């Protein structure tokens, strides 16, 4: 198989159809015009279906993009990405945190060179959650997605003062955040802010420092895109295939 390495950034951090319904239902009930009910299902219709066998894990995902972004494979060495996919979460931080932290610093080195600066002078700075690189990557290495059963879902929403206390970015104990991931959550921008945004979340955001109409710092805290797919407020929540 052709080696494809996905590099994608993401991450949250902190321990943080349509098709017109052609109903087969006896009553001809249209739940809405996006779906139809399946009335074949009965508890007993597993009869004769073979589910035997042993299954071995091949892929894993908690927070989107962590493995793809912060793991990397070196030619000639065993794949770290594959190892991540077959490591149980309780053992992930010990196995992968150091590699993740090195990768995070490498991203900063790349931009130091593009800016004509010494890579030694451009390093990760504690992010909007106050996390240093070691703590951030420790959290991210344990690749699980947290979802609150009894609270609204908010992956994280930088720039929103969730509790109206005037403290926009730094959690102070009463925000509702890190409570899941909804299809419209912009996990990429959140991840970029956590990786490159520094304490204020806007460290590299295309600033025009000398006011000459040209950006002097790169835009690294947002990829500039939002949701384009159709989503729905009713089950199964995702739009019909295009």
């Amino acid at each position: 198989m052709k080696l494809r390495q996905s590099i994608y950034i993401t991450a949250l951090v902190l321990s943080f159809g349509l098709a017109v319904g052609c109903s087969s239902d006896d009553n001809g009930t249209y739940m809405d015009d996006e779906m139809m009910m399946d009335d074949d299902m009965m508890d007993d219709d597993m009869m004769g279906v073979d589910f035997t066998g042993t299954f071995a894990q091949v892929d894993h995902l908690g927070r989107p993009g962590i493995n793809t972004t912060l793991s990397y494979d070196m030619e000639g060495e065993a794949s770290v990405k594959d190892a991540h996919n077959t490591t149980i979460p309780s053992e992930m931080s010990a196995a992968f945190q150091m590699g993740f932290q090195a990768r995070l610093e490498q991203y900063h080195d790349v931009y130091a060179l593009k800016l004509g600066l010494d890579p030694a002078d451009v390093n990760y700075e504690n992010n909007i959650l106050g996390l240093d690189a070691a703590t951030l990557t420790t959290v991210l290495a344990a690749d699980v997605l947290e979802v609150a059963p009894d609270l609204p879902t908010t992956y994280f929403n930088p720039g929103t003062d969730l509790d109206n206390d005037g403290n926009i970015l730094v959690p102070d104990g009463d925000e509702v955040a890190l409570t899941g991931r909804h299809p419209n959550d912009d996990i990429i921008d959140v991840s970029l802010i956590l990786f490159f945004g520094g304490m204020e979340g806007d460290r590299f955001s295309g600033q025009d420092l000398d006011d000459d109409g040209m950006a002097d710092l790169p835009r690294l805290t947002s990829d500039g895109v939002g949701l384009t797919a159709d989503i729905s407020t009713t089950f199964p929540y995702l739009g019909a295939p295009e």
Partner: protein
Amino acid sequence: MRKTTKYLLGLVALVIAATVLVSADHIDAPSSAGTTADIADFYAFEPSEGSDNTVFVVDLQSNVLPELAYGAFDEDVLTEINIDLDGDLVEDQVIQAIARDGRMYFFGPIAPSQTGLSSEVNTDAALGNVEISGATAVVETTSDGVSLFAGPRQDPFFFDFFQFNAVISPETDSAPGGFLPPEEAADTFDGANTLSIVVEIPNSMLGTPTATNALGLSVYKTWVTTNRKQ
């Protein structure tokens, strides 16, 4: 390690890693990339404010790039949604899904007889099953109030992935300005489809979590795996 050495190693790594891209987990590693067991994405959310249910969405495979496996659920691939209640990062409840002859069968939630990297189908804990949809969504709701779906859907992930690859390229003239402003940026996944498995389940069937997130809020700690028949 001296910074210069670290830097050089970094460049080597980036050159190798920059061979491609893709999504939230789409194509993330050599052994699973582009196969029928490739997990593309994972969502977990409250369906509406005040709801007593949780929705899990697992996206498998993707047609965002050519040459990727896409279009049919593999009957040799068992998908598992793992739920940790106490915060030890070991699954306390598992929901399984596997395709057979045009239907997706679901099992659990159940405390697994063994945790870890090897699984068997929990046939004693049938949850329900649903016809695998075509373009029209076919849904099933069980007597327990669980909603089930499996089939192709639009991939809701969004990311200017090609620009991202330019951004992380070590070439000094590659995207020196970083990402593009919104009027120039493009969602690589616009128009892409994925194979979705969606389960909406009452929280009462999962249990009450004692785990908390960084803000002290009670949360399930969840992850999805794919497992291939041996």
